């Protein structure tokens, strides 16, 4: 009995340590955002200040990077969500013998280091550009184009996985039922498949955007001119002398916390609504069946 108790506390201690490891560095970084020293310092905490947030808001490279990140992120959504969807739809339809090869190819970008995806994208489009005799104004060299294409190479694979897991729960007979009722293939796709996939399209878009926003390794090669927020951050962080980066981290964590909280509240409410509806339906159904039975 006591050994069980000891074990229990040991587990709790371990989890606490683990989370300390996860959050400790971030919390310390957060405090430096409110501390006055010019070099990011958490201890000793001298005096509270919001100065670094104003510095952040006035930082041109950060603001510009943010704009570029948004642009690239939207481009990545537009490219990788349709590609991921198509790849997922094809998965169940390719020949059984080809499927493993196909799967390996389309999942490979997830395991390829981002650096290599960036390099190969750059090399490839440069090659096409030069072979066509284009100068550097051509879109083959456009940093936004290269970044969107490069990031979409692996973001599409994430999207595909999301669609695949949703498709696994798809009831194929719904498709057949719609066909049987006279729907054309396009109508089946539009009226049955797409509505079913709608939540997955949403999550794929969110994931695509966040992954794109976060990406460094690929972007650092493809963004040949200008900077996204992440690459701008990186060049600042390498110098490592500015608490406005900590301020940015605080802003990002703050937004994340609010987002997660809202998502959780929304989710709980949906779950409860579903439960209530199911309960009501069950009761109503029972009554209806009972009323009908003696007919």
């Amino acid at each position, binding site marked *: 009995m006591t050994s069980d108790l000891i074990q229990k506390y040991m587990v709790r201690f371990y989890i606490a340590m683990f989370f300390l490891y996860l959050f400790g560095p971030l919390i310390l970084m957060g405090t430096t955002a409110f501390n006055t020293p010019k070099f990011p310092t958490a201890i000793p905490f001298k005096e509270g200040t919001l100065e670094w947030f104003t510095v952040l808001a006035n930082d041109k490279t950060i603001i510009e990077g943010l704009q570029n990140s948004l642009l690239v992120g939207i481009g990545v959504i537009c490219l990788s969500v349709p590609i991921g969807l198509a790849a997922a739809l094809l998965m169940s339809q390719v020949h059984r013998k080809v499927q493993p090869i196909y799967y390996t190819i389309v999942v490979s970008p997830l395991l390829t280091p981002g650096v290599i995806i960036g390099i190969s994208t750059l090399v490839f489009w440069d090659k096409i550009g030069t072979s066509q005799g284009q100068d550097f104004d051509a879109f083959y060299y456009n940093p936004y184009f290269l970044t969107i294409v490069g990031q979409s190479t692996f973001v599409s694979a994430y999207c595909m996985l999301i669609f695949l897991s949703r498709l696994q729960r798809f009831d194929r007979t719904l498709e057949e039922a719609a066909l049987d009722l006279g729907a054309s293939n396009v109508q089946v796709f539009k009226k049955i498949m797409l509505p079913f996939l709608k939540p997955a399209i949403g999550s794929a878009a969110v994931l695509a955007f966040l992954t794109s926003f976060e990406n460094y390794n690929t972007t650092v090669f493809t963004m040949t001119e200008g900077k996204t927020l992440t690459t701008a951050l990186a060049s600042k962080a390498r110098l490592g002398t500015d608490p406005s980066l900590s301020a940015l981290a605080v802003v990002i964590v703050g937004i994340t916390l609010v987002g997660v909280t809202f998502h959780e509240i929304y989710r709980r409410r949906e779950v409860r609504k579903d439960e209530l509806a199911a309960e009501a339906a069950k009761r109503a159904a029972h009554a209806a*069946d009972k009323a009908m039975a003696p007919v």
Partner: protein
Amino acid sequence: MSSGVDLEHVTIRFGDFTAVDDANLSIKKGEFFSFLGPSGCGKTTILRAVSGFNEPTEGTVRINGNDMQGIGPNKRPTALIFQNLALFPLMSVADNIAFGLEVEGIKYVERRRRAEELLDLIALSGQGDKMVSELSGGQKQRVAIARALAVEPEVLLLDEPLSALDLKLRQHMRSELRNIQQRVGITFIYITHDQGEALTMSDRIAVMSAGLIEQVGDGSTIYNEPETAFVASFVGENNPFFGKVIKADENYAQIQNKFGLLRGRNTQGLSEGDSAILFVRPEALSLVHGDEPSENVIESTILSEEFEGHSIHIHLEGETAKKIALSISNDGTGSKLQVGDTTKICFDVDRAIVLPEGDLADE
């Protein structure tokens, strides 16, 4: 050509596996026709060939005399009710029912009106705006029927639609289905493994086993005049007695069995020396009272007895592991038999049938 559905030498193979083997039959317009058989016998495959989801490997499917080769399920005048109903979970009841009209491009107001009409038909008036998940099993069932009827099919195909319902509802839905069929007057092709459903609802039944159509006929023919050992054993309860034919004429055949000589009707033209099975239904067997009849007497040990109100079921030791079942109606005196006693039972020669040896249905 006749109108309705015709299958001409339809064979359907999946790789090496033959799901349907040379099916030939003609289903009349307005008929309630059932395919009855155990799971895996190919009945669903036939249905899918009629609806257009499978193309026959060989042979022709005709609807109203037209060859359906190469015509997709969305272009055939059929509507299929799926085993799991396949109602669209993201649409309201009315949208489900009107789906077929929606894809035809009919305006919202018109298709909503049609949906309301059909909701009336299935006694769900005013429930069109509910979501499918809010309906009970029986209601979903009826919505599926309404959705199929909305496209005004000439043939309605039903793939074991009642199998998910509980017993009471199932019995109710049987008469409901039959009613709807008589009201709309179109051909129903019904797939089931439940002989009760097939016998009560159908005009005619095709009994299938392992891809083969064993027999086609109305309910009483299937029950009283089975043509194969499979049909005799699958439809209703039956006691088989195995043996060799030792005497046969055009009306009767006699087999030699462990229990002695047994004689029954010879409908399949058996002749001396053939391996055969004689089938007697439990209700055709009776206990020997008083004088012993001159033939068809079996002596065996009583293994169990079940009292069931209007009748009494008795099981006796059979020639194989399968017991001989006998049911006698309760005459109020109660049975004076004891488990373990040896008793004599007999049957009338005209209530037994001798069929060529063949596979029996699994219990």
